Every structure is written in C-alpha cells, then in structure tokens.
C-alpha cells in the first residue's frame, strides 16, 4: 500500500469511504499510534476480558476550539475526559473506544499530532484504545475534528460512590486550583487573545483516585468539575443528595492569573471549566486523612477542604465570602457571558 503524506496531505472524502484510503488512514495512523493486541486484530468490535467487579461505562464527545491549546489538545482531552468520568465512579478505567468525525481538508499533520497525543495520554493513564471509527464530512460541515470516546472500567466491591450519598456534616474537598483549563483555552480564542502563561490542567485522575480510595474507601462522592465548573458540580450533588452545601471562599484555590483573567472578562472562576481536578465528599472524620493523601499525589498538590454539607431542604449551594457576607452559588444559566461595564 502507498504511504500517506502525513506532512502535507489533507483529509479527503475518501478517508471515510471504506476503501483503500480509509484502510491506510486506519493502519498507518490509528493502529500504529494506539498499538495494542486487541486493536491489532482489527475486528469491527473489540473482544476482551475484564477483572472481577462491577463494570462502569461512560462516553463523552469533544468539540473544542481551538483544537490545540496550552497544556493539551483535543486528543489528550478526549482521553482524559472519559478516563476521569470512569474514575469518578471509583472505578479503574481499562479500555476506550475512539470515534473521529473529520472535516474534509483538515491537515493530516494536525491529525497525526492529535492521534499521537491521544496515544500518549492513554499510555500515561494506563488504558488501551481498542476500537474506533472514522467518518469524514464535507468541508464546512465540521470544525476540523470532533472526537467521541467511550470507555469501560471496573469498580471494586465495597466502593460505593454516587452523587446522592452526601450527608449533612460531610466535608467537601477540591484537588487543586480552579479555572486553569477554561482560561487557558479562552486565552487562545481569536476574538479574545490575551497573553498568559497559563496551561490547561487537562490530566487523567485515575491515579489520584486510586490513592484516595486506598486510604479512604468510604469516600461518598467524586466528581470532576468540567463544564459549568465547581458551581454546576456542587449544585448537581446538592440536588441528587437532597442537601445544602456551604463553601468558604477563602479556602478555594485559584491562581492569580486565572483571577486576573476572570476579572478582566467579567467571569467567575467558580463557573469556569476544569479538566484535571476533582471534588470529593467524605465524612468529617475522614477529611484530614483524605486531604493528606491528595496532597501527596502529583495531581493533588494544591488540594484543600473547601466546605461542608448541610441539611437544607432547598438544596442551595452558598458561600461565605472573604468579605464576611454570604451569597448563593447558583447553576450557571446558559453561557457565562461577559459583563458590559
């Protein structure tokens, strides 16, 4: 088979048509990069065994602009996102699928960068990409690349993590600084363009979760505050558990650069997306131990206890402000829009 021009070539309609061009794309790019015994069998479906335990499954679709951003790209993000969704059930992620929607004309060199980045992210997270799919849409009908990943993992007996398990008196912990991903991505959007050294926090959190569960198997809730930020995640948990949550603004870690960018754009870091942070809720007596384990892990160095769970039939999330007042931390409504003046 002829090689593809991975330096100057572009995605063509034929790359999704089921013929030789598609076979070359799959063989030379995807199989080469994701290489593992299950994938190499090139069946339409991957066949594998799973270790004992309950099976956890999740899927996520990634449509980010720009495709490459400081600290990551759509490829690494697509792996981290699904790995983290599985890890937030207290499970060990094992296998991923990858579906690509490519826009005609997209540079193959960029696609290769994205695929390599996915492969690296999967290796680092200890998961294998075992099957996939490619479709090509006409120029103008896509935004370069969309990626869907789905994944399976296994949760050990005795681990019971769910959004409805928060109880009054529990403590809320965060694994690190808020808003790094959202602000890093925004800084590269063409209509904003502000200078910052910030990089996305995009990272797989299954290693951190494993350490946390080893030290504290009774963790009640784990969530990664992605879209909608910390505010959306805590409101979901308050709804599902039928409780209130009170945060201490003082305790929530936010980098200076994120604060400044949010100030400039009229945004609130509590609502900005994260891709490498988790929040944990555990019983009060476990909180100190859990915090120490999180801080000892490279993904949890800036971990803090940021609040408590309260009895509240209205299921409000509120926050003691630094100033000494109290305010609600509500769901975001629509997009977070900048203020005018």
């Amino acid at each position, binding site marked *: 088979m002829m090689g593809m021009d991975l330096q100057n070539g572009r995605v063509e309609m034929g790359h999704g048509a089921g013929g030789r061009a598609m076979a070359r794309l799959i063989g030379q790019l995807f199989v080469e990069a994701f290489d593992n015994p299950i994938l190499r069998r090139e069946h339409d479906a991957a066949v594998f065994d799973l270790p004992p335990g309950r099976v956890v499954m999740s899927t996520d679709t990634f449509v980010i602009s720009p495709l490459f951003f400081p600290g990551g790209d759509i490829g690494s993000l697509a792996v981290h996102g699904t790995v983290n969704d599985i890890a937030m059930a207290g499970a060990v992620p094992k296998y991923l699928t990858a579906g690509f929607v490519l826009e005609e004309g997209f540079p193959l060199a960029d696609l290769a960068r994205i695929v390599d980045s996915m492969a690296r992210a999967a290796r680092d997270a200890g998961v294998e990409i075992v099957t996939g799919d490619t479709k090509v849409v006409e120029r103008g009908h896509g935004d370069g690349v969309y990626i869907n990943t789905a994944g399976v993992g296994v949760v050990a007996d005795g681990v019971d993590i769910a959004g409805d398990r928060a109880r009054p008196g529990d403590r809320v912990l965060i694994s690190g600084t808020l808003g790094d991903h959202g602000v890093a991505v925004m800084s590269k959007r063409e*209509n*904003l363009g502000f200078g910052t050294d910030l990089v996305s926090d995009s990272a797989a959190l299954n290693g951190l979760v494993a350490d946390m569960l080893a030290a504290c198997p009774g963790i009640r809730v784990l969530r990664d505050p992605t879209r909608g930020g910390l505010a959306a995640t805590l409101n979901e948990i308050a709804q599902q558990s039928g409780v209130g949550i009170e945060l201490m603004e003082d305790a929530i870690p936010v980098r*200076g650069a994120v*604060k*400044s960018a949010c*100030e400039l*754009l*009229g945004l*609130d870091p509590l609502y900005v997306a994260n891709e490498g942070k988790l929040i944990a809720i555990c019983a009060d007596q476990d909180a100190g131990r859990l915090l120490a384990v999180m801080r000892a892990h490279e993904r949890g160095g800036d971990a803090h206890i940021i609040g408590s769970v309260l009895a509240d039939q*209205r299921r*409000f999330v*509120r926050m*003691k*402000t*630094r*100033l*000494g*007042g*109290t*305010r*609600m931390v*509500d*769901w975001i*409504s*629509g997009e977070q*829009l*900048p*203020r*005018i*003046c």
Partner: protein
Amino acid sequence: MKYIEEFRDPDLAQGLARAIRAEARADHAYRFMEFCGGHTHAIARYGVTDLLPANVRMIHGPGCPVCVLPVGKVDEAVALAGLDGMTLCTYADLLRVPGSGYDSLFKARARGADVRMVYSTQDALQIARDNPARQVVFFAIGFETTTPPTAVALTQARAEGLKNFTVHCNHVLTPAAMRAILDGGQDGVEIDGFVGPAHVSAVIGTKAYAPFSDDYGKPVVIAGFEPLDVMQAVLMLIRQVNAGKAVVENEYTRAVSFDGNLKAQALTDTVFRLRDSFAWRGLGDIPDSALSIHDDFADFDAERRFAIDTPTPRENKACACGDVLRGVKTPEDCKLFGSTCTPDNPMGACMVSSEGACAAHWTYGRFREGGRG
C-alpha cells in the same frame, strides 16, 4: 491580583461595617440607591448586604445597560439581524434579552441570522474590514462608559471610508435617568442618597452630579465597583444624612476627577447629538436622555441606512421590571420572580444581565427569605 484584592480585604470590611453600625442612627431608616448594575452585582456577589445593619437599605437602580432597553429596541435588533447580508454585532448580555413574544438575538442566531458577540467596538470594525461583502452593524448600547468606544469606531470607519459598517445607536445618559427617578412623584421611591456610578463618572466627572445635591438636596457619593468602595460610600452617605448635608463626594478618587475625561467628552460631542426623547424600560419617555449619531456621520447611522419595520412591541404585563428599575419594587415583589422568570428563562431584562437586580438577587441572594439582597 494587586490593586484589586486590597479593595476586598476582609479586615477592612469588618472595620467599615463596625463604623457603619456605630454611625447609623437606630431611629432612622437610610435608603440609598446604587445607580449602577456594577454596584448591584458587587453588593450581591460579595454579600455586602450581610454587613449592613437592617436600617440601612440599598435600593437597586436602573444602571444596567440592557435592562433599560425597551422591548421595542430588542425587536429592532432582531429585525436588523434578519436582513439579508447583515452581520449584527453587540455586547454579550443583549443576546439573551427577550423582545416581543420572547424572541431574542440568540433565537435569531439559531434561525440563521449572523449575530456576533463582541467585547469591543474594535472587534466589530475588524469584522467589517474582513467581510467587505456583508453589512456589519454594531448595535450600540450602554451608558457613558461605552459611548466613547463607539465614537472612536465611527471616526475610524469614516477615516477608512468603510462602506459596510454602521452603528445603531442606543447610548443613554445617566444624569437624565437619575432625574427621572427623583421626578417620579407619588409613584416614585424615597431615596436619601445615591451611590454614584464608577466607570460612568470616570468619563463624565463628578461635576455632572451637582444638580442632584444642589437642586434635589440628595447626597451623592461616587464609588468604585469593589465591595470596600461600596461600603465606604455608604458610610460617607450616612455621615452626610446625619449632618443634614447634601454634597457630591468622590470615594473613587483613583479613577474619577471633577472634570472627567475631557478628551472622551469632546469626541462624544463631535460624533453624537442629543435625542429629543428616548423610551426607557420602566422610566418611559425621557427627553434629552439619549444620543443619536450626528449628521456628519449619517452614512454610518444604521437607523438612516436600513429601513426596518417592527410591529408594536408586546411586553408581559405581569413583568415588574419597570418598577424594579425605578426601585419601587424589589425583585421578590414581582409575581413572576422565581416562578416563571428565572435566568434560564428570563421574562424581563432585569433577569438577564448579571447586573440586573432580579438576576443578581436570584443568583446570589435568594437564600435570604424576605428579599434583603
């Protein structure tokens, strides 16, 4: 964040709260209007209300650019956006404001209109330069803060001879709205003093507020948008009230001068002229309260360039935005608040912008039963 965190310092806030409690007379009710949505937002977001004694009440004013825009103007924006070959640019908040039948620019965009959210008039100009085959209209809204950037864009467009850039001007004037509130008569709200605008005052200067102290006998303290600014201004207002004084004071000396930004004022005078009258949401028709584009820039005036025909605007009769904007009602006095009207599904403009009184109370303050927020 240097030079910002200092104005959110908890110890200083507690000190100011103690001073306010000590100086506010127990036998007196203090009713201060913060004119600007920026102040409304700061008060709600930082929980400033919790630091004020019960007899010091903040009344939210109309200084929220999208809130004061009447439904008819939103309809005009939607109609403009629907014209063939048109790209409509505006500031973000406006996209969600409901017009007649709850139509909005967001919905127009979903129907296929080219509606762009911009951070600056410069972005709108650039879109025009990059797309010579399209007509680009900047739907300009806002008080005196956003007026000079619109003026700059118009002068640039004229200098460059751009044929495809126009401005639909809806810029409004702060002092006119303050006067309308004080002239409200029996239906009006009792106000003991104003926390005056921050950014607006950086443009128009403290001199613009003399009529309110001199003619109306109301104390005015210009304040920055940080929580300590607001608390300091409240303390200064309490001191004026206690002393029976009514003067214009400036708490925001780090940005505001007596004269304001003379260069911006001169440019604004060149590019715009006073409208005879402008319809405000909640405040009705107010003479000499808004700007239109000067004849010298007629080629860049969307109102003259594009004929649009919008039917009589329809407002939800139960929406109390108008009364909320005048300070006559609190958000919780409105029947729609929190039931049919929430930020996810706003019925009125006050629920749209984060600077709107209803949105601020819903988002930050509604855990307080009874509406002190």
